[in-house]
């Protein structure tokens, strides 16, 4: 099981964005059927500049700008994937996945099953998530829970540059449609990333920090929040374990449950809406799996049940922070 902190010795550091780009470049070199499709992906390299340089290396036939047609080019990718290509589709803001649901859910996710296993759809949809960028309600959502609910799809939420590279490479090589969520606030996050060709398998959680008193299960940028909270907790004598499932589906239930059994307390953190979201599934899995070991109910912390407001002081309270997690953990531990 490749664990990020084990690679801290590697002295090469990349940003999250660079790790994504390196994964794409490596896979495109390795496999000529991999190509990139999306809005402003070519010369512009996306508004986040995540793809800068790929056009120059791979040319216009493999890095394609599209019209603003999220449904259209996602559908095109499904057909291309069925017939020998490996598309990596770029949906600029995760909020726009709303436009691709039919292609992803009624087509991509079901083709393999409906055809009795005959056709396959090896495609990746890369998109973004995460609030606090002052982008308001239509550019700040984290809608990954929808995809997690759909059999036939896999869903990946990397939290470090190391994981981003390894998971994206695994996603591209996977024979199934994979939705890959990148928190846009993490693109500049730095971390160790080996230059070699490694993958992080889908379905394997990672213990990002070992602890004894409470388990913080966290996804995507919430892993950083959880690690920050763990540091604060340490100061008050509470040892927190931080577990990152890394892929929402397949879900490594065992690692989550084992950690909660060990610590007897758990908080689940995710930047999607709390209600009917990822935190519900993770909390329920833990509440069931560690039922006889839990000393307190599993606490869920997700985005507040409001459209993300533009106004900074309002937006800031809609998502969990180190401080709110610290306080919740302290309360849960009764200290």
């Amino acid at each position: 099981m490749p664990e990020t902190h084990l690679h801290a010795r590697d002295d090469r550091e990349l940003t999250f964005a660079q790790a994504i780009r390196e994964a794409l470049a490596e896979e495109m070199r390795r496999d000529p059927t991999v190509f990139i499709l999306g809005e402003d992906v070519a010369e512009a390299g996306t508004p986040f500049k995540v793809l800068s340089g790929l056009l120059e290396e791979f040319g216009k036939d493999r890095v394609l700008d599209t019209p603003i047609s999220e449904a259209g080019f996602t559908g095109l990718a499904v057909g291309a994937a069925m017939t020998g290509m490996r598309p990596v589709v770029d949906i600029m803001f995760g909020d726009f996945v709303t436009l691709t649901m039919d292609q992803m859910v009624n087509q991509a996710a079901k083709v393999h099953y409906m055809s009795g296993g005959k056709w396959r759809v090896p495609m990746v949809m890369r998109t973004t998530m995460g609030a606090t960028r002052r982008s308001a309600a239509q550019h700040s959502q984290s809608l990954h829970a929808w995809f997690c609910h759909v059999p036939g799809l896999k869903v990946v939420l990397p939290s470090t540059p190391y994981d981003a590279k390894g998971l994206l490479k695994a996603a591209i090589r996977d024979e199934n449609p994979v939705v890959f969520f990148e928190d846009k606030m993490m693109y500049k996050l730095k971390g160790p990333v080996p230059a070699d060709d490694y993958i992080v398998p889908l379905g394997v959680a990672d213990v990002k920090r070992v602890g004894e008193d409470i388990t913080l299960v966290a996804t995507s940028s919430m892993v950083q929040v959880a690690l920050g909270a763990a540091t604060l907790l340490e100061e008050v004598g509470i040892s927190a374990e931080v577990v990152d499932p890394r892929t929402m589906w397949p879900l490594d239930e065992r690692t989550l449950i084992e950690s909660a059994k060990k610590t007897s307390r758990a908080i689940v953190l995710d930047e999607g809406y709390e209600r009917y979201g990822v935190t519900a599934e993770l909390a329920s899995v833990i509440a069931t799996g560690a039922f006889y070991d839990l000393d307190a109910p599993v606490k869920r912390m997700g985005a507040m049940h409001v459209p993300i407001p533009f106004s900074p002081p309002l937006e800031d309270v809609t998502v969990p922070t180190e401080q709110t997690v610290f306080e919740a953990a302290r309360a849960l531990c009764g200290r």
Partner: protein
Amino acid sequence: MTTVTQPKEASEKVDLWLRMYRQMVAIRQFEAQVNELYTRALMPGLAHLYIGEEAVAVGVCEALERTDYITSTHRGHGHCLAKGASPDRMFAELLGKKAGYCKGKGGSMHIADPATGNLGANAIVCGSAGIATGAAFSSRCLGNGRVSVCFFGEGALGQGVLYEEMNLAQLFKLPVIYVCENNLYTEYTHYSETTAGDILSRAIAFGLEAASVDGQDVRAVHATAQRLVDRARRGDGPAFLLCDTYRYHGHHVGDINREYYRSKQEEHLWKTERDPIAKLGKWLVEQKLADVAALDRLQTELESEMKKAVDFAVAAPYPAVDEVGEDVYA
């Protein structure tokens, strides 16, 4: 656009015409058996019969290679057969049997068959426009010269994604033909109530080569389709083919009382005066390329072939219950 037929050309193409005749009869006989299965309560769920529209699938698919791709619709049996699928495994699929093309998991609206380039029927109206366009994209990238055909009913003109795909296909110059089967009705609504402006102009506005054809004249369909397919294969880009046609039966096998949305008179007219099989048959006889008895024999022959295929399917076993969890992920 109809084919102008010279005697010389006629004799050269006689094989094609007889093959198309046979294929149309096969589809009709297949669908008759589907209706029968429904009436006898042997078929789970519903099915949408292609009877009356045979010339479209047959005319277009005869212009394709086996390795070319098609995508199909909820009314997809005709496309599937015309592209080369076997009736026995199709019936098995319709009955949810393990021997079916999709191991029984797909059913009538989802038959798919890589061996004949069938990317699958689709129960979402316009659901396969992206898939067909994407297959054409692969052809371009892989340089394998394959053409992709997207069949859809005129109801799909209501879906915005069709225009997104046509725009993409034209921008990328993809070898894909969008074949619109205008059978006048969506489920229970006349297309004039749901379609503003002019259909062909919609495709032309996106830069596509566009043509319309009498969808009951299989020779005309074939000739036009062939031109568009050749053009696409040469790299000249996508096209749109509008075929005027008619479904003789209801929207699905259970749609029996139809008078609130269309008249018996209209149905009668299409059946008696514009039947694609009768039309080609009459012409073949007139041209002395076939005699009535031979054509009748074909009918009987295919009927019994279809019955045998049904028997196979009825006798075939269901998948084991624990197969339910297989094929979710590859």
